[in-house]
């Protein structure tokens, strides 16, 4: 090596580069974080208000965006009872808290994150497995209350354990799942045919 190494190979030069690159990336991340959090606050276009559970929800291919997107339809109150935004929030919140405290995420994925032992729950509310909109709520509640006796293992032998959900917790979880299915997930999962698509082609 020569006696006078070029500047770009010096320790000091790279120290400065490291500091500036890190600081710059971090500042950009902070700016994007503010933007993202404002665009994903509850009640916006991407993450709907909790009272969206009073509405029919579907998930269809959107030609304009060239991907699947949630579609909010006519009135279809959960458990037949329209809720105010505050009541809906209480119910969804109970559901979310139950999902965490029962540790659902260490078997299932939510929005695609979690464990891979059981199906993704992102669009569970819309899954054709619930047969029809008319039977769905009852089926979901009975399943959640006693998954062992109402097992839906599709021949895999993987039975969900009974997590001892109370009636109210089970209703909360259903509300949470319905609310989550209305989140605009940029087209994930792709090609998902909802329960509505099965009955009305």
């Amino acid at each position, binding site marked *: 090596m020569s006696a006078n190494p070029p500047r770009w190979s010096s320790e000091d030069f790279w120290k400065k580069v490291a500091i500036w690159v890190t600081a710059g990336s971090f500042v950009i991340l902070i700016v994007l974080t503010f933007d993202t959090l404002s665009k994903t606050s509850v009640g916006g276009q991407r993450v709907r208000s909790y009272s969206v559970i009073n509405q029919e929800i579907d998930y269809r291919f959107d030609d304009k965006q060239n991907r699947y997107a949630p579609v909010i339809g006519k009135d279809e109150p959960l458990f037949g009872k329209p809720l105010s935004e505050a009541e809906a929030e209480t119910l969804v919140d109970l559901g979310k*808290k139950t999902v965490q405290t029962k540790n659902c995420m260490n078997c299932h994925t939510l929005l695609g994150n979690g464990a891979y032992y059981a199906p993704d729950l992102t669009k569970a509310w819309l899954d054709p497995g619930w047969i029809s909109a008319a039977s769905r709520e009852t089926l979901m509640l009975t399943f959640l209350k006693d998954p062992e006796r109402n097992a839906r293992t599709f021949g895999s032998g993987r039975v969900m354990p009974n997590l001892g959900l109370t009636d109210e917790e089970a209703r909360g979880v259903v509300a949470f799942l319905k609310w989550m299915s209305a989140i605009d997930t940029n087209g994930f999962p792709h090609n998902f045919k909802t329960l509505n698509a099965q009955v009305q082609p």
Partner: protein
Amino acid sequence: MIYSVAALPHRIAGAFDALDSPHLNGGQQLAVKYFAVAVVLFLAQVLFGMLSGIQFVAPGFLHGILDFNVNRMVHINAMVVWLLYGFIGSIYWFLEDESGTEIAGLKWGNVAFYVLTAAVTVVVLVYLLIQTGPGKDASIWFINEGREYIEAPRWADIGIVAVMLVFFYNVAGTFMKGRWSGIAGVLTLDLVALAGLYVAGMFYLTNITADQYWWWWVIHLWVEATWEVLVGCIMAWSLMHLLGARRKIVQTWLYIEVALMFGSGILGLGHHYFWIGTPDYWFSIGGFFSALEPIPLVAMVVHSVYDAGVHNFRSRNHPALAWIIAHTFGNFLGAGVWGFMHTLPQINLYTHGTQWSASHGHLAFFGAYATINIAFFYLAAQKWRGDVWMGGDLPGNGWKWKWALALLNLGVMGMTVALLIAGYEQSFVERAVGGSTWEGYFAAQNQVWFKQAMHWRLLFGLVTTGGVVLLVWDLLTIGKGESRKAPTLSEAA
């Protein structure tokens, strides 16, 4: 009875004091305690990994007693905690050497160790015995938070932060008392970021999109930014210590790696923001920057192999150097190659949340982080016995460390490949054809290729477990009765 319970902490401390060795400095005595717990947790990790792996093959196994979610939670939590124990230990290991002075608050460091270890024990017992709670805040505070990798209940979070503050005080305080160096500066700032990020994961939010947004700050900005830089610091010191590499070169490389790693990894965070409800500009930002993340990992391979080559692979600790080399390749393969394979949104749409992620997760965590900690376990074993010989011609030709190295790498690589095959199959059958419905999911799980892959994973899991057991045996016995001293290297300039 009361007497014996009251005497318990004293007894436990006594047991750990048996680990002290006259050959170690104060920080190193403490490091050995951390390493001992880390090894125990490593064993727990593979044990609970095996239990969850068995459940994929025989779903009725332990059903209702230790369900899959419990086993998996213990598996990944034991991993996160043992790796952190290993990192803390490694830093205490070289702190006095790097700063040229004694640890600022060794007494507090010891207290923090016992507090943390007691807290970890309680958390694990609650995971196993209570498992889950009602959907109330109290469960989040005292049982488990139900968020992957950072399930620890809130009380433990606060304890962890307190312990981290003591650790941070010791690191910064010791360098301040002694001398600063490039490594010291990077390390100190990195630890601030690492601990600060943990706080981003301590909140409950109903809005699951915002929840996962912050959750990834912890997970991604740990493993793809702050942990990478942390191991960069550890590597820098190791290369000087093991090979006698020159400080100026090592530190220049460290700065280059910091620039490349943070420059790609911080905004690379966007590869987790494709599908959680966040705006679609993250497609381009996440795709672009995360695609650059392999570059620093290549640089690290070049750097360490070059350094090792310059010194003709002559080192004072063969097992440690072998594990360091395993680290650079494992980091590059597991994080760089396996990460890159599914990081572009066009591909991730079909692979997100399949066994692809598990394949990558295993090779990356093992290759990048388990390996370097194991290297430090060997450094510790050597010095603990009085800086004994650990070069070539060990008794039995060093078969134990060589076989442990081979079995562990073979086992993890085998699991990784099995999971990759399962992941490919899932992408096609469940995602592309089945449209990700529950029926599609189970169609993929029931497919013969998937089932075979789960058997292979279990088999290679057994190989991995064998490797861990052999590793522990070797760590307990290597250098015993050795009378030759380790050679001294020319001092690092």
